[in-house]
């Protein structure tokens, strides 16, 4: 599907052959998509516990045993729960799932995560659509810049370990 002009306004460097591969949804965000599922939003929130209703009333998850801040270190600890570890490059590796984490420029505040494929990346844009794009083409005012990469054994298709989240349901 063609990228809507509205997205090109928000991401002026988006590569010309980028395409929309999934419809918008308020039910899950970039982190959940990068992890391989499409239920719930995952993001730090103010308040107690591991779950809350987000701005649209959909479920928002952040494990209560992690701080509720948006720092890179906090997100790395979240991904660690899903067995991801830091790696040093953006190259696709067969047999591994690799994710790029974006932060605001000159800051360690996380803004976005994208799944790395072979010569492309996949991003769920907030509550917007899923797009297939060049990894660095969404850098800029909104998402800042690619800050680091993480990986775990697996493949790019959905292989989400739901037990990491369900154990927090009381």
């Amino acid at each position: 599907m063609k990228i809507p002009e509205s997205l090109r306004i928000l991401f002026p460097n988006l590569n010309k052959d980028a395409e929309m591969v999934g419809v918008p949804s308020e039910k899950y965000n970039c982190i959940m998509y990068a992890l391989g599922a499409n239920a719930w939003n995952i993001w730090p929130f103010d308040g107690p516990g591991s779950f809350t209703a987000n701005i649209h009333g959909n479920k928002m998850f952040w494990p209560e045993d992690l701080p509720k801040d948006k720092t890179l270190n906090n997100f790395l600890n979240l991904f660690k729960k899903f067995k991801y570890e830091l790696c040093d490059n953006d190259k696709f590796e067969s047999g591994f799932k690799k994710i790029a984490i974006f932060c605001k420029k000159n800051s360690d505040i996380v803004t976005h995560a994208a799944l790395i494929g072979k010569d492309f990346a996949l991003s769920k844009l907030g509550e917007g659509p899923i797009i297939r794009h060049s990894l660095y083409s969404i850098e800029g005012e909104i998402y800042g810049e690619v800050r680091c990469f993480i990986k775990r054994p697996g493949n790019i298709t959905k292989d989400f370990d739901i037990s990491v989240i369900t154990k927090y349901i009381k």
Partner: protein
Amino acid sequence: MTKKEIINELSYHVKSVLENEEHSYISIVDKKEIYNDVMNEASFALKNKTSKDYKISQREIDRAEFFHFYNEWRNQTYVLSDESLKEENSNYKALEQMGKRAVPFIYELAKKEDGILVRLLDKIYNCRLDEPGKYISINVIKNRWFKKIEEEGDI
């Protein structure tokens, strides 16, 4: 273009966008060039006139005002995952400022869409009906808010 015509056009547009399900807020941006003039005129009219000037109801003005700010907010923030940035957006703040005048349209949207603007309702009613920290389905949250809004006669 009279204010009545502006409101009618906006209402028609909002209705057609809402019927377009999940792509609604993308569609509205794509059509933005076409509707920019309408939006600008509506904003100008809303700032400078009252319903008395045009003999139209306050409800129609509230509707146009609500959907103007709502669509602008969605257009500007839908790619963000960070909720605090969405709440800091000036259009969202304008929705908060509308207070109970916004409630009939929050209710209307929630009846048509999957979600409900719970954080906005929290601010307007100064209470929370979801239970922070607990795993509650959106349908339960929606039904609690529908009941409260209906009981308070704010539709």
